[in-house]
């Protein structure tokens, strides 16, 4: 199987959610304390499940 490249994505934005905290990454180790602003861009490794909470 051919390995796919990383996939850019946008963190969802709404009146309620302004920051997203990573809690699970099935490919890489999570960077402690790192938060992501709603509307910002992220890069998902191929074949990954990522979970963020607010």
């Amino acid at each position: 199987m051919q390995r796919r490249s990383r996939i850019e994505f946008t963190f969802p934005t709404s009146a309620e959610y302004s920051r997203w905290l990573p809690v699970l990454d099935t490919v890489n180790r999570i960077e402690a304390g790192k938060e992501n602003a709603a509307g910002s861009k992220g890069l998902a490794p191929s074949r990954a499940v990522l979970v963020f909470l607010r």
Partner: protein
Amino acid sequence: MASPLADLVSYAHKHNEANGEENRDGSDDNDSTNCGVEGPTSDPKIVALRQQLRRNLLSSLLLAQGVPLILAGDEVGNSQNGNNNTYCQDNPIGWIDWSGLGRKGEDMTELVAQLTSLRRAFPQLRRRRWVEGRRPDGSFDVLWLTPQATEMTEAGLEFSGRAVSLVRTGSGPGGAVARFS
């Protein structure tokens, strides 16, 4: 009968020959992949891919709605050598092999503990009611998003893209976004 998780990423087809029915028994709809080689391999790329897919599938299961059911031994890479119908195999084919416990890459008990811990800590990951999606008043309890964070249309749900997001809200404040890429 069922296939262990390790077999779902190691065999594209059932291998029930040991059952004595010329491989006719058991489901032919295996919903599995062998990642390039049928059965055991020492190819490090394939081994790594299989382990990655197992981590993803365990995560998808434990992040899904409802009560997660894990087949005993799936967290340590138990295999039935591709046999998906072991009703008559009271031997090592049907017995659970726990030898993967503590073996780097194979032992995923830590990941399962992390996932169950997340479910316990965050109610948005363990809703007790059927999800409605987008409600008439514009609120939602679950949304499917494109990589650009726009709401998916029904056509998009056919999984033409490579990445999707699932956004859930709990009964109180709090949201969760899970990305599958």
